């Protein structure tokens, strides 16, 4: 094959091909900025099968999340995200502290997040491409996100042990905010893989369990002491007495009353950071 004269100058980094200096690999024109897949005006649905807490000191969460993004501009999108933690319990470390040295985290510090719903935004300030093993090329973006919303919380009242299952008390809805960063690696025009780290921060003040405050729980405890059913207690509106009465899976739920009373008798507050690793697959359309 005859080689054009231009190729004889190929070692010259200024040799231009399609307006770009081909043999200067540091060239920016046509090489990095131009995105083969435009995001603007597209919808993106992301399923995160795994959302794993990575900073679990007193708590441990495993969950899944679903997110929708409308890409308002090429580098800016509006986001809705829902997350459900199908495993949210106090950590083994917290239990070790209880078992061995009779110490445990404050109620607010070990508050568990059951689900969260947030609205926010996502920006993609950095775009790039890479070669895997000098073969396949892939395009990726650095994604940075922020959001705010509400989350449902609960607190573990007793751990699972031979005497019965773990029990939990509802501690209500809390304000949730998040910031995150990660990578979106695009495969073709429609699919992408995402790996992100998100810090889910939520306010935590524990002064009610199942809607019952300290006075309500004291009244129920008094009924128990008198041998009366807890449903006979005079409690405030919003206190779910039924959640402390009867049996569930053979466990007498009234046993949770002193545990809940212990939690709320010294109200505690904290701001918790649930740092999670989110891995997911997204579809763009």
């Amino acid at each position, binding site marked *: 094959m005859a080689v054009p004269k*231009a190729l004889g100058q190929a070692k010259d980094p200024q040799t231009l*091909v399609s307006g770009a200096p081909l043999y200067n690999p540091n060239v920016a024109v046509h090489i990095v900025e131009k995105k083969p897949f435009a995001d603007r005006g597209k919808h993106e649905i992301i399923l995160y099968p795994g959302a794993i807490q990575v900073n679990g*000191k007193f708590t441990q969460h495993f969950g899944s999340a679903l997110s929708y993004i409308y890409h308002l501009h090429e580098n800016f999108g509006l986001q809705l995200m829902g997350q459900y933690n199908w495993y949210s319990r106090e950590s083994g470390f917290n239990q*070790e502290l209880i078992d061995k040295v009779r110490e445990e985290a404050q109620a607010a510090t070990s508050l568990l997040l059951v689900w969260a719903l947030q609205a926010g935004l996502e920006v993609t300030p*950095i775009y790039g491409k*890479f*070669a895997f*093993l000098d073969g396949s*090329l892939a395009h990726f973006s650095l994604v940075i996100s922020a959001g705010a919303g509400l989350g449902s919380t609960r607190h573990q009242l007793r751990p699972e042990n031979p005497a019965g299952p773990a029990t939990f008390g509802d501690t209500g809805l809390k304000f949730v905010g998040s910031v995150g960063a990660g990578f979106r690696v695009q495969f073709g025009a429609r699919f992408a893989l995402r790996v992100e780290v998100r810090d889910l921060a939520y306010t935590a003040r524990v002064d009610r369990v199942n809607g019952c405050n300290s006075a309500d729980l004291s009244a129920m405890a008094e009924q128990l002491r008198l041998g009366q059913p807890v449903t006979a207690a005079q409690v405030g509106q919003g206190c779910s007495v039924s959640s402390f009465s009867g049996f569930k899976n053979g466990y007498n739920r009234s046993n949770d009353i002193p545990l809940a009373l212990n939690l709320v008798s010294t109200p505690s507050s904290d701001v918790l950071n649930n740092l999670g690793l989110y891995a997911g697959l997204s579809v763009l359309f």
Partner: protein
Amino acid sequence: MPASPTHRILIAALLLGATQASAEELLERVVVRNRLYQVAGRFEIAPAVGFSLADRLTNHINFTVGLGYHFSDAWALELRAGYAVSGHTGLADQVAQHFLQKETIRLVDDLSSLWEMKGSAILGVRWAPIYGKISLLAELPIHFQAYAWAGGGVGSFHRQSVVYCQQVSGMSGDVRCGNWLTQNKVRPVGSAAIGFRFFTGQRGAVTLEVRNYLFADSYLTGIETTVAASGGQTGVPAKSPGLINLVLFNLGYAFFL
């Protein structure tokens, strides 16, 4: 960068009438796959500082130096040696202090995961299958490698108990410990990491990585606090103490020689 025969053929095809789309594809293939920064056949010296993540009872700031040789652009062998400034977290100190005030606890098991890694020497293989570039602020192209690292070696470890006090002092309600039980050991350690190297030039790269050190735990169970306080030997080693994961975020710089 010299043009290989393959490149010449590709470029010839381009110049002999390729479409605009195929021209762009060719550009992409040539420029992205052709590495501006090549490390094959080069040695490197890579100092780094690491900060432990998700601290529970111990914290570490680990200073390391790596000496590596790149067999190819993707594969390298590296020896890393490190020394860590480590200690108990505030939580561990709090647990210890509170425990001393609980004079009713006479029999206790020590806590797990209290070993601090002081020194380490590990040998491992680094695989960097990904080479790419990003456009920072739309103007500044940054070339990077993404890699995985795995290996093992030995570490020197130190442990200070939070329940085994050998010298109790002070009054009731303000009990203090003058001498906690400490232990030192040398034991095997495994390590794995994933990270990025952002090239700053032909002779260096900024390195960001998350590294895990994995080593065996050990602690005493059945400690009689009164025997311990009198300076006696008490407790038996835990039967299944498990493993400790020490996860660090490392920030460093690699000098290519």
